[in-house]
């Protein structure tokens, strides 16, 4: 069996296992481990696993996940996040779908600092999802908006993934970041329009618009200040460069615990409830990381991503069709990989291919920036694309009352705007490059 066919078999076996209700982390791990075995043998597999799991769960940046989960859990149990949502709803409730839009924007803001799609969705959803349901959003719209919103922040500077792309392709980081702003803005507008259209066509998906009275606004405003203060410290500090996201999460935790305890809003039972949700969600997310890590290692060993990339690159067809093929390829990879693994494994092979082709007579430097934005965009689409979208799974795991089918149905309108945005980006590289040329 060639390494390529082993790679493809792993992929197929994973999909099959997923289809028959095997937990997705396990459905990734088992074919990954067997593939590794076939490619490299028992001893290397066993040796790989000695360090791989610890390596995956001891990442400094990823500790924001349990930290923000616990902070969110405490805020929920202590009534802080309800206060926040009541206030936000008093402000935005007059617009139908307003809270869903706020959720998407919160995801964008958080994603730009966390740099991880999965961490973003998990963190925001922990606080926002139950509240959206409480005020009358359908499970379909709430889960879809948050799962989709999570994919946007990774494009927003400072983006680690873009930085890695810039390093692999020797591009200027500042220009790379500049190229991301307009596409990210287009994405945001697309998502907000999608929500507006959905709530217009399907009014039952969102609560009726309801203008709050001045008194209500005052009343909710008075209860909201502790959580606003905590957010101001945490996010002000992170954006202001005073401390890292992990440090901000740690500080937010201590502050939230202190505020809720001092205000007598939390007792033993509520604290235990916060710990349980934290444990449940963090456990779910990290088990997926462990499973994905195993199949990623085996796929890297099989060189399937690199070989497929080469195959796509050597198709004797017009450049734009090749580009379309590349986009499909990334959406498929999005089934099992996070954006960072996709970039690391494929860009070294695909980049020279793309650079060798002519697109609208673009200069090499422009072509490189444009391609970077394009592949990061499709990587993120891949994470919510049916039937296997890592981020949809995470979101759905948080919303246990909503069937996966509902979430996927909800994602469709957002995917339509993604499709439009991608076509726009492919046909008009200026969307990405305009700001770069303007400012440099």
């Amino acid at each position, binding site marked *: 069996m060639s390494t390529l066919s082993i790679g493809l078999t792993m992929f197929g076996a994973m999909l099959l296992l997923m289809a028959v209700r095997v937990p997705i982390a396990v459905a990734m791990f088992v074919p990954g481990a067997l593939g590794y075995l076939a490619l490299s043998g028992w001893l290397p597999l066993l040796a790989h696993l000695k360090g791989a799991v610890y390596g995956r769960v001891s990442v400094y940046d990823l500790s924001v996940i349990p930290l923000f989960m616990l902070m969110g859990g405490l805020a929920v149990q202590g009534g802080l996040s309800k206060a926040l949502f009541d206030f936000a709803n008093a402000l935005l409730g007059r617009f139908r779908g307003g809270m869903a839009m706020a959720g998407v924007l919160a995801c964008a803001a958080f994603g730009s600092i966390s740099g991880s799609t999965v961490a973003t969705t998990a963190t925001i959803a922990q606080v926002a999802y139950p509240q959206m349901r409480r005020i009358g959003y359908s499970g379909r719209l709430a889960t879809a908006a948050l799962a989709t919103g999570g994919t946007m922040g990774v494009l927003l500077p400072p983006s680690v993934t873009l930085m890695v792309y810039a390093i692999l392709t020797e591009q200027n980081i500042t220009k790379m970041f500049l190229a991301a702003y307009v596409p990210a803005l287009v994405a945001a507008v697309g998502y907000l329009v999608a929500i507006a259209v959905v709530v217009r066509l399907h009014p039952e998906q969102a609560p009726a618009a309801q203008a709050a009275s001045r008194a209500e606004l005052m009343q909710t405003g008075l209860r909201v200040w502790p959580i606003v203060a905590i957010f101001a410290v945490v996010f002000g500090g992170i954006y202001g460069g005073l401390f890292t996201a992990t440090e901000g999460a740690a500080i937010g935790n201590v502050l939230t615990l202190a505020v809720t305890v001092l205000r007598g809003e939390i007792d033993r039972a509520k604290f235990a409830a916060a710990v349980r949700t934290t*444990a449940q969600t*963090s*456990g779910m997310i990290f088990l997926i990381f462990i499973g994905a890590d195993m199949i990623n290692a085996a796929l890297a060993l099989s060189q399937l991503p690199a070989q497929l990339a080469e195959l796509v690159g050597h198709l004797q067809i017009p450049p734009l069709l090749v580009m379309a093929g590349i986009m499909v390829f990334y959406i498929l990879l999005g089934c099992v990989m996070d954006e960072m693994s996709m970039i690391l494994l494929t860009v070294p092979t695909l980049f020279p291919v793309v650079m060798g082709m002519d697109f609208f007579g673009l200069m090499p430097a422009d072509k490189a920036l444009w391609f970077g934005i394009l592949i990061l965009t499709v990587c993120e689409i891949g994470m919510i694309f049916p039937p296997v979208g890592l981020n949809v799974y995470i979101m759905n795991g948080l919303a*246990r009352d909503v069937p996966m089918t509902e979430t996927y149905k909800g994602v469709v309108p957002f995917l339509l705007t993604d499709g439009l945005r991608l076509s726009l980006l492919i046909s008009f590289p200026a969307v990405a490059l305009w700001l770069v040329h303007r400012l440099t």
Partner: protein
Amino acid sequence: MDQPVADSAALERLLDRLCDASAACGALVLMAMAGMTLVSVVGRALFAHPILGDVELVQLGGAVVVASFLPYTQQRRANIIVDFFTTGASAALQRRFDAVGSLLYTLVMALVTWRVAAGGVDIHAAQERSMLMDLPMWWPYALMLPGLSLCVVIGATQTWTLFRSPREVAA
């Protein structure tokens, strides 16, 4: 038939308590990490004197936290599955699928537990220590083992329950 049911209910309660205890330990470590980080940030901001090695403490602690949280997730059957393709299948068939799923989960967690233990033994033998705090690097490996082993026990119990009574409708 009454006796085994009572037994399995007692076992279920014991596992519930163990998962809670494991999650509580994880939460304690997590809060300790948060407190330590706060002290370090304040020390850095006010006295230019952070805790040397705060980053590595978060890394070591993070591994222990995650391992302590994993059993609770499985006990609540909260590891995500795709129900998209099997919504039309009978409850009995779904239960058989779930039995296979939890069997595979058990095998994977057993493999992981074994290898993490082996990794810890290796690192102990090599006397590897953390860079700044000079802590033995086998400690986090060892502290991951209780949580990981509990995952294996839970997986095995669930598998056994699911295979034993395939007709019972999933709770």
